[in-house]
């Protein structure tokens, strides 16, 4: 016969054990917790019964039992509250459930409302023009406003600043700089705000973007799908980053003070509109997330590689035939123009085949170099092979890496290597990456980390974070970079990039690119279209700007591409004071 005390302790220990097991269960397995809670009920009841002084059988005795049952009931509720409100509270608070069938998400509304109350930080352009602001609406709700729209086309800025929506999430800098815009503060300040009921105020961002130039770039694209990026080569500061079609972030900014259903309807219809077929994917930031064949702009990298391996590539012992056979069974490499040798001369040199963009010559360079040497040069310029670690070219926006080829062993085939040498093959390059290539050549061969946010400031003006221009790596030697600037100047002064020579008194250098891609129609199943590319630097002696223009289906790079690049250059020299 176990005595009462021992039995009581055994019961309590068993109850504690079951409860601990239950408390440790993840919140998804709530059923197990509830079951263990119910299992403790009889144990607690027995323990309590043993603890109470035994009464003679009678009314009082039974009342006591009844009271014990009721008491254990309250203990169970208290234990349930302990778990839900204290031990697992944080997890439950943040728990979001996504229905596996419908994909619909259920989550706590409170963090969303909390986020709506945060007075998110402002964004300024490089000249301290206010781009994005926050208005406090009735009910202490914060609403994102876009003062930039008063002077500029807001669609030019959508991708950079991003949208901020409690329903659709965030994009652009709103997403990547969310923690700063929400207001990073020390714990003391947080506690103070919480106690005094102050809405938290976020930090402001000073961008490297020039709003006027950004606006101008979108005008230059003139509604054609594509991107324009302008980088300051010496620092890596991004002056322009435009992707077209764009979107107006105000279209998705929820105003909690407005009539709810009308506001939701407005945002819904805008969202449906920009996601509809035929809208051209305005939410895609083509400049950092669009990957295309670079066309002849890639000859810049083949040329660098040839200059680095003079013995193997013999850059100045070259010709420019109309066709060049690469391997048996593969179609020969052809030039875009018949009898290009009339322009380059025969034999000729690197400068002339670069300026006149001779495919057969660059196919030959690639074959002479071999896949490994070409891939090694490309990797230094940030165009990586599938087996290399893919590093995003920019941290400030969600950007993707550029690829030299896709299938393993692709460059082992001479025909593929030759195609890659003049910018076709399986190359997939983002406009930002081509801008980085141009900027590296402009900056004596050193790649600077591209960045969009110059400074993060607290509302009181103290600087939280100042971006220091950072050299990522040397892409090529200073001498070769200088030689490449001469080649690019040749491309604009007498080659196919003449249309880019649009800035009086400034020597612009550049390289066009015409990237072919199949665009079959019913009548012409084999039809080919072309993306127009142009990379440009100016002034070539000491470049201040590196520009990339990429127009989807824009045709000849030497036509639409070069013209747009020239316009961007002249706008840059007009708006940006040294």
């Amino acid at each position, binding site marked *: 016969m176990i005595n009462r005390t021992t039995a009581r302790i055994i019961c309590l220990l068993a109850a504690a054990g079951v409860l601990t097991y239950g408390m440790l269960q993840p919140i998804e397995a*709530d*059923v197990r917790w*509830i079951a263990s*809670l119910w299992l403790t009920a009889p144990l607690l009841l027995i323990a309590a019964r043993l603890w109470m002084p035994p009464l003679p*059988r009678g*009314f*009082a005795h*039974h*009342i*006591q*039992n*009844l*009271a014990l049952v*009721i*008491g254990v*009931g*309250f203990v*169970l*509720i*208290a234990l*349930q*509250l*302990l778990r*839900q*409100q*204290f031990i*697992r*509270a*944080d*997890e*439950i*608070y943040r728990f979001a*459930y996504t*229905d596996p069938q419908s994909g*619909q998400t*259920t989550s*706590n*509304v*409170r963090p969303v*409302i909390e986020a709506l109350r945060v007075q998110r930080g402002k964004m300024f352009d490089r000249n301290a023009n206010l781009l994005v602001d926050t208005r406090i609406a009735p009910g202490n709700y914060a609403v994102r406003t876009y003062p930039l729209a008063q002077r500029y086309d807001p669609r030019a800025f959508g991708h950079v600043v991003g949208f901020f929506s409690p329903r659709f999430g965030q994009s652009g800098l709103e997403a990547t700089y969310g923690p700063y815009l929400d207001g990073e503060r020390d714990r003391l300040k947080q506690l103070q705000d919480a106690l005094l*009921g102050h809405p938290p105020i976020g930090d402001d961002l000073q961008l490297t973007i020039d709003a006027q130039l950004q606006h101008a770039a979108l005008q230059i694209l003139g509604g054609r799908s594509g991107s324009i990026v302008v980088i300051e080569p010496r620092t890596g500061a991004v002056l322009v980053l435009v992707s077209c079609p764009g979107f107006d972030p105000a279209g998705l900014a929820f105003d909690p003070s407005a009539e709810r259903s009308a506001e939701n309807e407005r945002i819904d219809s805008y969202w449906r509109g920009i996601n509809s077929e035929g809208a051209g994917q305005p939410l895609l930031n083509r400049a950092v997330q669009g990957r295309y064949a670079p066309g002849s702009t890639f000859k810049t990298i083949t040329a660098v590689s040839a200059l680095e391996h003079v013995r193997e590539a013999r850059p100045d012992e070259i010709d420019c035939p109309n066709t060049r056979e690469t391997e048996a069974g593969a179609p020969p490499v052809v030039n875009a123009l018949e009898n290009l040798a009339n322009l380059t001369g025969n034999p000729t040199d690197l400068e002339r085949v670069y300026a006149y963009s001779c495919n057969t010559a660059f196919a030959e360079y690639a074959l002479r170099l071999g896949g490994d040497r070409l891939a090694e040069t490309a990797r230094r310029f940030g165009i990586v092979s599938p087996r290399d670690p893919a590093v995003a070219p920019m941290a400030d926006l969600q950007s993707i890496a550029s690829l030299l080829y896709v299938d393993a062993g692709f460059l082992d085939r001479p025909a593929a290597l030759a195609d890659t040498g003049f910018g076709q093959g399986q190359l997939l390059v983002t406009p930002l990456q081509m801008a980085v290539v141009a900027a590296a050549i402009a900056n004596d061969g050193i790649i600077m980390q591209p960045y969009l946010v110059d400074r993060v400031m607290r509302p009181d003006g103290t600087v939280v974070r100042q971006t220091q221009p950072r050299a990522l790596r040397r892409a090529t030697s200073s001498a070769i970079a200088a030689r490449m600037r001469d080649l690019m100047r040749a491309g604009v002064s007498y080659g196919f990039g003449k249309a880019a020579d649009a800035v009086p008194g400034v020597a612009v250098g550049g390289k066009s690119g015409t990237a072919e891609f199949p665009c079959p129609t019913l009548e012409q199943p084999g039809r080919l279209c072309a993306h127009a590319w142009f990379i440009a630097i100016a002034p070539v002696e000491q470049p201040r700007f590196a520009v990339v223009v990429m127009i989807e289906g824009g045709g000849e790079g030497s036509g639409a591409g070069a013209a747009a690049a020239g316009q961007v250059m002249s706008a840059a020299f007009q708006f940006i004071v040294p």
Partner: protein
Amino acid sequence: MTGWWQRLRQRPFELELLISAGLLLFAGLGAVIVGRGEPVQWVDLAIAAAFIGLFLSMSLALALRGWGEDPIMLPLAAFLASISMIMTRRLEPDLALRYGDLYGSIALKQVIWVLLGAIVLGIVCFVPWRMRWLKHYRYSWLLLGLGLVAIAAVFGVERNGARLWLDFGPFQFQPVEMLKILLVVYLATYLDARRDLLERGAFRIGRLALPPLPYLLPLGAMWGLTIALIIIQKDLGAALLFFVIFLAMLYLVTRRVSYMMAGLLAFAVGAAALYPIFGHVRVRFDAWNNPWADPIGGGYQIIQSLYALASGGWAGTGLGMGDPTAVPESHTDFMFTSIAEELGFVGAFGILICYGLLALRGYQIAIQARDGFAQLLAAGLTTAVVAQALIITAGTTNLIPLTGITLPFVSYGGSAMLINFAMIGLLLRISAHAAPAQLS
């Protein structure tokens, strides 16, 4: 001359506790009003003053009469009612903002209900009526209650899928609340009268031992009544509560755990049989079993409640700082969740302790009552209040399937408030051990 002074000095505890409840009311209302940045209006002061004045004068009157009523019951009810008034005042603007102006005046209405409830309590305590009447007219009480519920079932207005309300223009009356008190009275008389029969034990058919017929018959009737409530009125909460009250009182008379178990089993079987047939039973059970199976439908309310509890934390967000109205019915069925969100685990635990104390005192009154009828009546009334609190708090914290009943004294609602105060009044009457013999 010294008599009244002596009597006053015998009851200081109740007065002190009531003053504490009054201070809580002042502090809570103050926090709500200042937190919203509103000016203090004379209405608010008048409300608090009326509340305190009414309860204090009642306490003084009880002391002066010197019948020796329990000194804790009244302050407990006052305390819970204060919480109720604070919370309705706090929820009113949010509810109006979220769900429309229908909720624009719930705070004032609730104050009126609390004051009316206190007056009902006063009537029960001070009007000289004989306890015997309860016994003599037991069938009238029962028929009155059932009749009201039947009228509601036929002519009532439907709300949230349950037809529970009789519409009287600005006010709605919930007869099932009335039935609760009448049923306890009826059961106490019935069971007390058949105490000997019930105690004698089982009668046998061959080897099968059956409970005595006086047990079987009311058990069957009760079971039928609750199932009818579920089917006709879709009122799961009241059905469960009635059955729990009945089982508790039956246990006190028969002193057999096995009958209680059998009764619970019968209820479970009944509910299980209804599960596949009736949507509202199924929805409640499924939402309890796994709220995430239908997070925007059946599980919505309980999921919102779990989020509200979690955002409360141990100390709560503070009055007016949370978002309790994100949970539907935050002022009625889910009042406990609202308190748990804004006052935290500490506040919710405090509420639970209040009900625990109420149970403790109520059962003590039952033990000390002078006759079997009073004992059963006191135990039944106590169980009615406390079990209701248990069922709804367990439901809103997802410990058991949610059934829509009010949290006694705290949830917004008029009929419940009046009936709860009447029940406390009855308990006070039973505890009046020094009352003149002809009145008890």
